């Protein structure tokens, strides 16, 4: 029997950027396909996101970063999740990650998916759902 019937996803914005329009649109789109989205809002520390993900027992953590700090924040998040024994939770990254090499490197260090900003939202949603399964 499948343990989980309802997919739970945490969406949050780590660090100092204040652009939350994209992540709110994604939250709506996930909600519309039956996902329970825990939205933690702006200016989250990596520790806040990691501990929240454990408490909320989410399947996927989506972080949106437009500040350029993704090469610092994402590895930090992956490290903290591992330290909490939550390394099985999938981390996806969106926002503005312009450098293809950066995207490849983040996926190499353990991000499940890094979205380019021109990926259609339907594809983002279906990728997140398939990661939760």
């Amino acid at each position: 029997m499948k343990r989980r019937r309802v997919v739970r996803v945490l969406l949050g914005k780590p660090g100092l950027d204040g652009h939350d329009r994209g992540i709110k649109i994604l939250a709506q789109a996930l909600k519309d396909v039956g996902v329970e989205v825990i939205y933690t809002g702006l200016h989250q520390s990596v520790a806040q996101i990691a501990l929240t993900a454990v408490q909320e027992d989410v399947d996927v953590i989506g972080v949106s970063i437009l500040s350029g700090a993704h090469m610092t924040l994402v590895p930090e998040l992956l490290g903290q999740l591992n330290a909490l024994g939550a390394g099985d939770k999938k981390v996806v990254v969106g926002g503005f990650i312009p450098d293809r090499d950066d995207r490849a490197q983040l996926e190499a260090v353990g991000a499940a998916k890094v979205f380019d900003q021109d990926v259609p939202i339907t594809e983002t949603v279906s990728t997140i759902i398939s990661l939760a399964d």
Partner: protein
Amino acid sequence: MADNAQGPDRPVERVMPDHAIARGDIGAAARLMSDLDDEVPAARAQLRQLFPLTGRAHVIGVTGAPGSGKSTLVDQLVGAFRQRGDTVGVVAIDPSSPFGGGAILGDRLRMQRHSVDEGVFVRSLASRGYLGGLSRSTGDIIDVMDVMGKTVIIVETVGVGQDEIDIMRFADTVLVVQVPGLGDDVQAIKAGLLEIASIFVVNKSDLDGADQVVRDLESMLSTKTLRPGIATPGIVKVQATRGRGIAELVEAVDRHRSDSHGSDGMQTRHRRLEHRFYECLREALFAEACRRFKGSAAAERILAELRDRRIDPSSAATAAIEQIVGWAS
């Protein structure tokens, strides 16, 4: 383990199960909560084992209209309880979409400063179509937090309806949050939400009309016949965004808590447990009845009569029960 293990609700001789969740395994607690929320049968067996560890926490319900500041108030209360050494669990319920069943759970947005505090555990739940302001799983999730040793558990209801009163089945103390500008004194004398308050919290006390809300509530309470054994609810003005009035509110909660620790309080707690039992019984009986009835020859006959309007729905149900009970005996 919690320091109030000798709480009034605990019979002396009870074998305490040793379990990872009681020893502080946060991940195990969080996963059990998901399984209970998803109605995984194995989770029920686990909770059965843990149930003797429950009944120690003080459960506080927070209800009130959308935008009345419930989450901000909960955030402040968590801070106040933590400051004096309580460990706190928060259950925050938001509505599920009637289309597709998804949800955006945003209550904890206002509580995120506590997310790195080891003494605080916040869990967001979607109502999943359950009415009355809670999710079906709320009681179970409270139990798990109780097992975790949280000394105070705060439950924030969805906050949409005037009859969102299920919280009284689970909370020792119910806070009903009111704000200025939502209605006149007739709103205050209507039935429902207002009758379940242990304490009225008038939030946004800096706004015009806050004193009028207090007066309306006072006038409503002065003319209301209280049920025997029930203390008159207190009224506390707060401005949650600035933390004003929170100390007074915590005092009022403490007062209510000590008032309800007598034999009346014990009776209330026992009644609440029995109510939960009857709810479970009702659901289980209904599921079993449907299982036996659906697709049977009698069902075909009774439903055909109903469709032809030869029999009304209530009589059809009675006829169905006679059939189901007949099969059982």
